[in-house]
């Protein structure tokens, strides 16, 4: 049986761990709120841009002068670019591993194509760098504060490669923020662009011709998709970490309860033994 001191030491160590997990949960909750606020703030622009793009695309379709835009070019998927957005840090449950698994499975299914990767977030970088060649770019430390410029920079790299014909399609793998409990894994094709549809077309006065307008709207749309994925991923990351740390705190509580019970039992056993010794010692003197 372990000694009383050993158990006490273990209880203390578990308590320390519990304090850390509790603090991490609190921090994640605060960061989650901020990430959510940021995601909500970004929403109006996204909605407006989508509507505008849908309308302009319709307008451009009716415009005989507008040629097909390179970002809409559908080619056979022989070279695929995978954009994988993971977190920079772990301790967030299955947040990173599930996403990595999803991307890896996709890569396995497309063995015949030439795959290249654009990796965002340390966890994904570390994983794919060891297992795949063809890492086009790695980006880390962007999530402390999500900036549109960062998303824009990465989107520009992707667009350039697609326009140059280096890749035939681009898939984006990310955790989307569904609710606080579980992130939703998503993989979407961002290039070639699938233009959002609109129900009601408006007959606009076009200050520039629709084809030209479409040409400048499309890259912006890709940037927006990447930026939105960033925001979603960050919110989902903090939510996942919050849940994981909450579970860890609870588990630590259970361990402490069990150890406390054991500790009391050990103490009681030693007291009982001492009493028996005293009683038997006394009766021997009789």
């Amino acid at each position: 049986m372990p000694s009383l001191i050993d158990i006490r030491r273990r209880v203390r160590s578990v308590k320390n761990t519990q304090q850390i997990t509790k603090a991490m949960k609190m921090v994640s909750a605060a960061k989650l709120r901020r990430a959510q606020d940021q995601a909500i703030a970004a929403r109006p622009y996204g909605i407006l841009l989508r509507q505008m793009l849908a309308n302009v695309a319709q307008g451009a379709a009716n415009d005989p002068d507008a040629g097909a835009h390179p970002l809409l070019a559908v080619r056979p998927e022989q070279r695929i670019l995978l954009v994988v957005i993971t977190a920079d840090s772990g301790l967030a449950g299955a947040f990173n591993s599930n996403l990595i698994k999803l991307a890896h499975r996709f890569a396995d299914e497309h063995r015949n194509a030439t795959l290249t990767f654009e990796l965002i977030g340390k966890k994904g970088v570390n994983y794919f760098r060891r297992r795949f060649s063809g890492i086009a770019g790695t980006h880390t430390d962007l999530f402390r504060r999500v900036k549109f410029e960062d998303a824009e920079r990465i989107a520009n790299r992707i667009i350039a490669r697609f326009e140059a014909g280096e890749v035939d399609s681009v898939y984006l793998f990310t955790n989307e923020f569904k609710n606080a409990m579980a992130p939703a894994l998503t993989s979407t094709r961002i290039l070639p662009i699938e233009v959002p549809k609109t129900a009601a077309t408006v007959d606009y006065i076009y200050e520039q011709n629709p084809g030209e307008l479409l040409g400048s709207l499309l890259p912006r749309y890709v940037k927006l998709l990447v930026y939105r994925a960033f925001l979603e991923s960050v919110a989902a990351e903090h939510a996942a970490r919050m849940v994981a740390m909450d579970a860890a705190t609870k588990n630590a509580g259970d361990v402490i309860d069990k150890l406390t019970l054991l500790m009391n039992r050990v103490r009681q056993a030693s007291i009982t033994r001492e009493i028996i010794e005293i009683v038997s010692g006394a009766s021997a003197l009789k």
Partner: protein
Amino acid sequence: MADTLHIEIATPEKLVVDQQADYAEIPGKDGYMGILPGHAALLSELAHGKLTLTTGGKTESFTVTGGYVEVRDNHVRVLADGVE
């Protein structure tokens, strides 16, 4: 015809302006445009320039660094790259 314009100015990061105005002057790519209530539906790219809103004699101005504007049913929606 409504007698005011509903102005929304959004950047990728947040909605900057959401208010009513009587008149908006917008830096279109091909020159400044004045928008009054009842304007026909219009789409244009923006240039870097000064966007001015007039409400009841008071004017407010913002510097936008490119983007797009949509005018429709007395709604002016500005998608700016940046607003200062």
